[in-house]
């Protein structure tokens, strides 16, 4: 017979059991195991500096579990974003994220993660702390998307991504332009207008300049330069562009531990184009017979032209090719060139110095350095280096990986640098952003976030030439495609009469092209 006492005991026991059961389902902290480490995220968004205007950093939680709780908020504060899901693909609500960042500019936020396994055990990981920068990043990223291309090209496009959201739209897909090759896109001082785009296709390889919705087609070939323009840089004044003219060959390695492709420039020269005069000019210092000059970049004040230069070398000695970083002064108004100066010598660096990019405030120059050669995206040794233009000297950035880093570009406020990196898999280049603080420290880079956190696990295209612009590129695909295929008018550049062709590189008169259209007939 049950006594009152037994009944009370039974009731008490029942209550304890029920409480225990419900506490398991509800994440009762008394049952939570505490991990001594932070959770693994992919992409790795731990200890990073985030632009205050960037889209949510969605990620995949790489911890096992059947239930996941993610709380995001100010450090030590209440969670402003709570995510409770049974999938490790974490998608942060965009509105709440924007609010969180705007309320914590210059402050840190933390991500707290709990997981539950099938047995009902909860785990609490150490909080991830990220910092919200004071400085915004430019609103759009423009880049080329293409597959790993060898000799043939068929499908590619130039796209723009709104960095404050996940919207991506095409600026020009080459399927609308008879599969023309779309080369490098360049903007003047991070503005979306004007845009310069070099193309290859058929007998012509025009340069397009999009201004105010209109597109001008410029034929830059003259009696001096038969090669189409390759790399371009806008003069800060907006009225001049410096192009490189490259005589490039694609050749291949057999060692499976290295990138199969490599580019060799037999020769290259630099020319400056003036929009006002429609004139191409150059000087022996940047178009010599004995040296290959490439990768031009204007200084922030427009008084100097930086570029990479190396003695012309046969392809058999490609392993010994190393470029110096040079500069020369140039007065765009008078057309006066100054003397050549060596900024960083290859001998001093022990590396080939390539792709100089000057910050808009003129303080820094970031370049790539690789153990040899001139096309860093194909060289796993390629790393980002910074040259301090005020105090001199250069150093290797801490943000590098074992794979190729290249194709970097500054934001308009000089606080952010975007670059392509193959660090995820050694094959596909992905865009990363690094924050440069007032002390000149380059912070841990963040991968361009995507709406689908697992996006990069199946994206078999490579992101090429990422460039930051502070607004949306408005020119229509139609206008760009028409300018390639059937331009109303082609502006034919003329050669500066002061240029004495015979003195300059003869090789620039021989057009070569390592790539050809792979469109099937």
């Amino acid at each position, binding site marked *: 017979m049950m006594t009152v006492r037994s009944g009370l005991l039974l009731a008490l026991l029942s209550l304890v059991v029920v409480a225990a059961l419900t506490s398991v389902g509800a994440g009762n902290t008394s049952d939570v195991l505490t991990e001594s480490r932070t959770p693994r995220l992919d992409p790795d968004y731990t200890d990073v500096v985030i632009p205050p205007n960037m889209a949510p950093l969605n990620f995949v939680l790489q911890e096992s579990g059947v239930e996941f709780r993610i709380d995001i908020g100010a450090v030590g504060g209440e969670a402003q974003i709570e995510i409770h899901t049974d999938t490790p693909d974490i998608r942060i609500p965009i509105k709440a994220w924007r609010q969180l960042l705007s309320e914590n500019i210059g402050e840190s936020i933390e991500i707290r993660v709990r997981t539950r396994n099938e047995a009902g055990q909860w785990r609490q990981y150490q909080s991830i702390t990220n910092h919200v920068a004071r400085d915004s990043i430019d609103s759009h990223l423009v880049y080329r998307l293409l*597959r*790993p*291309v*060898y*000799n*043939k*090209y*068929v*499908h590619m496009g130039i796209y723009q991504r709104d960095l404050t959201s996940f919207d991506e739209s095409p600026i020009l*897909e080459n*399927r*609308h*332009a*008879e599969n023309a090759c779309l080369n490098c896109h360049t903007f003047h001082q991070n503005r979306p207008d004007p845009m310069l785009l070099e193309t290859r296709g058929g007998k012509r390889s025009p340069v397009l300049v999009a201004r105010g919705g209109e597109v001008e087609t410029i034929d830059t070939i003259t009696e001096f330069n038969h090669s189409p323009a390759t790399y371009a840089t806008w003069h800060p004044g907006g009225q001049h562009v410096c192009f490189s003219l490259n005589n490039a060959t694609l*050749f*291949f*390695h*057999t*060692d*499976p*531990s*290295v990138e*199969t*492709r*490599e580019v060799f420039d037999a020769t290259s020269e630099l020319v400056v184009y003036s929009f006002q005069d429609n004139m191409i000019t150059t000087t022996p210092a940047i178009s010599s017979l004995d040296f290959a000059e490439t990768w031009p970049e204007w200084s922030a004040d427009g008084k100097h032209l930086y570029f990479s230069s190396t003695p012309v070398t046969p*392809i*058999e000695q*490609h392993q010994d090719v190393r470029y110096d970083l040079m500069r020369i002064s140039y007065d765009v108004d008078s057309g006066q060139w100054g003397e050549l100066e060596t900024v960083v010598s290859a001998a001093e660096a022990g590396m080939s110095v390539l792709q100089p990019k000057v910050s808009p405030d003129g303080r820094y120059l970031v370049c790539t350095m690789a153990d040899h050669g001139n096309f860093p995206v194909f060289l796993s040794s390629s790393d980002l280096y910074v040259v301090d233009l005020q105090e001199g000297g250069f150093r290797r950035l801490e943000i590098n990986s074992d794979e190729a880093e290249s194709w970097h570009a500054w934001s308009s406020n000089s606080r952010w640098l975007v670059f392509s990196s193959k660090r*995820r*898999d*050694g*094959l*596909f280049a992905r865009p990363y952003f690094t924050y440069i603080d007032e002390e000149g420290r380059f912070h841990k880079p963040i991968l361009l976030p995507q709406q689908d956190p*697992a996006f*990069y*696990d*199946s*994206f*078999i295209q490579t992101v090429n030439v990422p460039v930051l612009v502070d607004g949306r590129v408005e020119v*229509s*695909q*139609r206008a760009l*495609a028409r300018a390639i*295929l059937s331009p109303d008018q082609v502006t034919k550049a003329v050669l500066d009469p002061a240029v004495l062709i015979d003195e300059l590189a003869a090789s620039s008169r021989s057009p070569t092209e390592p790539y050809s259209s*792979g*469109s*099937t*007939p």
Partner: protein
Amino acid sequence: MRFWPRLGGLGPHRAVAFFGLCYLYVWLQIRPYLIFHVQEPVFFSGWSYLNGFLQIPGGISAYAAAYAGQSYVIDWLGALVITLVMACIGLCCRGYVRRVAGRRLDLFAFAPAVILLILHNRYHYDLAFDLSLLTAIAAATVSARLDQKRRLWWFVLGSPFIYWIAGGAWLLFALLCAIREWLDKRPVEAVVYAAVGAILPWLATWTVYPGTLENAYLHLLPISGPYLHGSSPFMAVALILYLFVPVTALLAAYIPPGKRSGRVAWNTSRVLLVGIGGWLVIASMDSNHRTMLEIDHQARQRNWKAVLSLVPELSAYDVLTVYNVQLALCHTGRMGKDLFSYPHQINAPIFVPSPDSPARLLALGDNLTDIGYINKAEHMLQEAVEIQGDRPSLLRRLVMVNVLKNRPSAARVYLGQLLRSPLDHAWASDYLRALDVDPRRADDVEIRRLREVMLETDYPGFFSPEDIMRQLLERNPNNMLAFDLLMGHYLQTAQPDKIVQNIRQLSQFPKAFPGTEIPRLYEEAVMLWATQVRLRTGAMPKLPLFGRSLSMSTQRRYSQFSQVLALHRDDPRRAKIELAKQHGDTFWYYYLYRGKETGVPVVSRATRHVQ
């Protein structure tokens, strides 16, 4: 049966019989798995893949075709899909003409199906064309069934959608709607419909479509440049298909029906028409082309014996077929014996015919992988991806290449994409799990084999086939495939001295060359070399056979060859004819009569099987 659609007045039984025959033809003669082999319609799940199709007129038809095309891997199912689509087109054609002309077409309702079979006989004809055509004709048939006011609304509201779904076939839809109005004695409406049909694509290029005017009008019409494949007859047949319905409708409307003949005459004419249609379909099938496709298909599956068994069916061949046959000889250990018994190139490297066409890129990629030239294999495969698109067969190969290059993360990205392909999802899942266990896939027999032979030294630049083989043999002297290809290369480029220099290497492969055996063609090269030295120096050289010996049968045969040659010393033409009878498969015959030309003859002079 009362409600069964009466197709062409033949009744349901004969209709089933007709389309049943079509089905059997597609299944057993065309063989959808070969269509898949040629086209490999690519389909991936997910919004981003679909979005690309939504940007262009006709994209939806292409997307649906890509999905339906996955059925081709199951032969009978692929045949069913194609036949159903053809039957629907036939139904709609008949329905339209019946509505506008008030007449049933009898057998001519089946003509579109016959034309479609002729077009599908060419393996490049995409199902997307069929779906685009079906959309246009079905929409026109629906329109034809409506009253005038509803037709107008249907045209106005439906046109943008029909255009965006069908692409270029929209022009046919507009024409058929105009014909409907014309035959209804509304010429003004007819002209307006035709004008809208002509203008809408142009309007699209100024609004929603950034592509070219040509694409706006002609996308998915099999008469435009990208689809012609260099064939004017193909374009003519496609034109007939698209013009069939409008022309037939007008003829049916304006030509009064004749007196009905007697039953016997009527049946005879039907049988005759069916016979003519059947003859056209069968005559338009290029069975030699089909055999070459079959050979390529078997070669890509590495069914080398099947490849060789198909050769007797060939009456002509191309470079790729020869390449596949030679690979089959290599893989079955018959290169040294049967090279000249099978189709072969003349005076050309045995290896790497220039990758002018995408189909060759895959064959090259496979061969380069098999011999261990991994980076070059990657090059070929990436070129193929760039030209042919993200075909899963290519992506699978790139998975293996990246594992071999110790880039498992890159392999995972390709696998991630393959997870979205319905036919490859399971394979990709399994492979990802295997990579989780071992990123180097040491459990995979083929990968283990390839790691033993693959080149690890860097030779930057461009190399001849001979250099490539030598590099591989330096890496691993036991690379049998590389050795076989090298020796085959020396045979085909008529370098007997190089064969002789490499006889000593036979001992590296005791299984392939047991005992004192020397493959027949190598023996023949040795004997020819010895004769050349003797003629040059006056003395017979010592044969460097390294413990091996020349067989009596080859020596006897050489003697016979020499006798025939001597007998017809003054009549080289006669000598050649006589020698071809018994010695056409020898190295000696090839050496003497290969001439100066290079490449692949349409018909091999030496191969006994082919005349």
